[in-house]
């Protein structure tokens, strides 16, 4: 039992992202309102962003910058202390992508609302079937 608990706790960042991923997926599959689905999609994307950021975390790590000691004039930070900046940079791109996706999805939701006067999926389908 203790093994299981320590296994769960030691990898808690992965559990968090998987739980968020599933919440997002659930909302996308189950929710009836299109805006709720869009929010679910955004949670889904954010979970992966958190996953990427969490893998670069280092205890007592520091920013990857050059730190010069004013007195001795030497470089004081050790490269081994640096937090890996690459996943953060990758996620900047992913954030931009998710914002753009959100924008397009909301724009389409507006068009759908103008067309059907509702954002509830079952009502939209009912209208489509009637025609």
């Amino acid at each position, binding site marked *: 039992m203790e093994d299981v608990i320590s296994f769960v706790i030691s990898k808690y960042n992965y559990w968090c992202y998987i739980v968020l991923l599933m919440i997002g997926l659930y909302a996308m599959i189950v929710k009836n309102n299109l805006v709720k689905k869009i929010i679910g999609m955004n949670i889904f*994307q954010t979970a992966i962003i958190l996953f990427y950021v969490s893998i670069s975390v280092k205890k007592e790590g520091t920013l990857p910058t050059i730190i010069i000691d004013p007195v001795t004039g030497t470089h004081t930070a050790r490269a081994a202390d640096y937090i890996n900046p690459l996943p953060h940079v990758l996620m900047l*791109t992913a954030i931009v*992508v998710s914002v753009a996706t959100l924008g*397009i999805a909301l724009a*389409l939701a507006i*068009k759908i609302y103008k067309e059907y006067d509702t954002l509830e999926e079952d009502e939209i389908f009912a209208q489509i079937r009637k025609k």
Partner: protein
Amino acid sequence: MNQHLPAIIVTVPLLSAFVITAAGWLNKKLCFPIAIAALGVSLYCSISLLISVASGKIIIYNLGGWAPPWGISYTVDPLNCLVLVAVASVAFINIIATKKNVEEEYPDKIGAFYTLYVLFATGLIGIVITGDAFNLYVLLEIAALTGYALLGMGSRRAPLASLNYIFLGTIGACFYLLGVGYLYIATGSLNMKDLSAILPAIYHSKTILFAFIICLTGLFIKMALFPMHAWLPNAYTYASSPATSLIAPLTTKVMVYAMLRITLDVFTPQYSFGTIGISHSIVWIAIIAIIMGSLMALAQRGLKKMLSYIIVAEVGYMVGGLWLGNRAGITGSILHIINDAAMTLCLFLAVGNIIYKTKTDSFDDLKGLLKKMPLTMGAFILGGLSIIGVPPTCGFFSKWYLISGGLAAGHYAFVAALLFSSLVNVVLFFRIIEIGFFEPFKEHVSGHHECITDQIAGNRIMIEEAPAGMVIPLVIVAGFLIFLGLMTGNIVTSIIQFAIPAGIS
């Protein structure tokens, strides 16, 4: 100049997309020439790259001079040079063929349409040329985002279909991104060449297995392999014809290429087809995709929806061909990427012309069309024959390679599925020929006299062909189907055989 071609092919359309937006504010007439010039530059670059990598050379271009694995490198090798030409030429021909249609469909949004169009082409060209796993994700999203917008600018139901595509497309792209994340955790690298050098030492790791599976799942969703195909038919059917005839031939094919790149190049074929032991089940999924795609195409009463389901079946061909894991199957798969792009372009352009003239694509309104629009219907029939696989059209040759791959692998169910789908395609296209040819009169029952006057009138106004600007590119594409078929031998011996890794027999 020449050594920078791999960068120019992406940057020129990317930057001109912004110029088109600005030009759209000044004068709408400027958009089309800029777009066509940018795509022309891409086409020229892709063809000269094709010529320079023929017979097995590889070009690696480091963007900004940063050597991999730190910088992003663009790679042109025999695997992607053909796809590059296919993407660039489809985008180029389609923009010419649909000019009139675009002007009438989006009178106030020409600038926006051409911006999205060129960005979409940029994204796809980038996916094909990039040698970096994360860069592939970014470009995949560029292509997907512009694709959603283009598909959303259609008929009344288009926005809903496009929103559905956004949900599934985002899940697919996110799965791919997750897979890349796991690869990065395990190897610390994102460059494909570098990954393929590091990975063999850690193939026993579960992380790598998960990364591989989740990357593939993401790509399967993106390419609409059968159980994950739900987004495709509606999105393509309700979009306007200029957008469909750009996106339908390219998206699924480029995703198949991405799968080829991951399975053959990033991972070794021994790992993909042997160690993890999933190839057999994926071929079975492909078989189901082929059969279901064909059957659902049979149930449709509209041209666009029928063609969309044919695409679902064709994706099954390519996925199955790759996962057979032998030389003939993979050759067929690569060949079918190009051939299917050409065939689908031909069919969708023809349907675009039909919709332009008759304002509908349902089977009931095709009556007598073979006489009214002989060139368009001729091209449509040629495309249909190619999908069926009648020699000397190109569809025959890729199907031939796929079937011989299936026989060599002893996978008779795959061969049977291919033959079944060909038979269904025969039914599909001959039904349309029958409607278009043998039912020329609308009022059969209304009496003898009217029938005769109808006939006389029919003889007078025989031809109501779409404008020349739309028909000529279509005829060129249709001719190209036969040309590609006749060139198959050269394409295989001088390019595709170098694309298949050594060690696959």
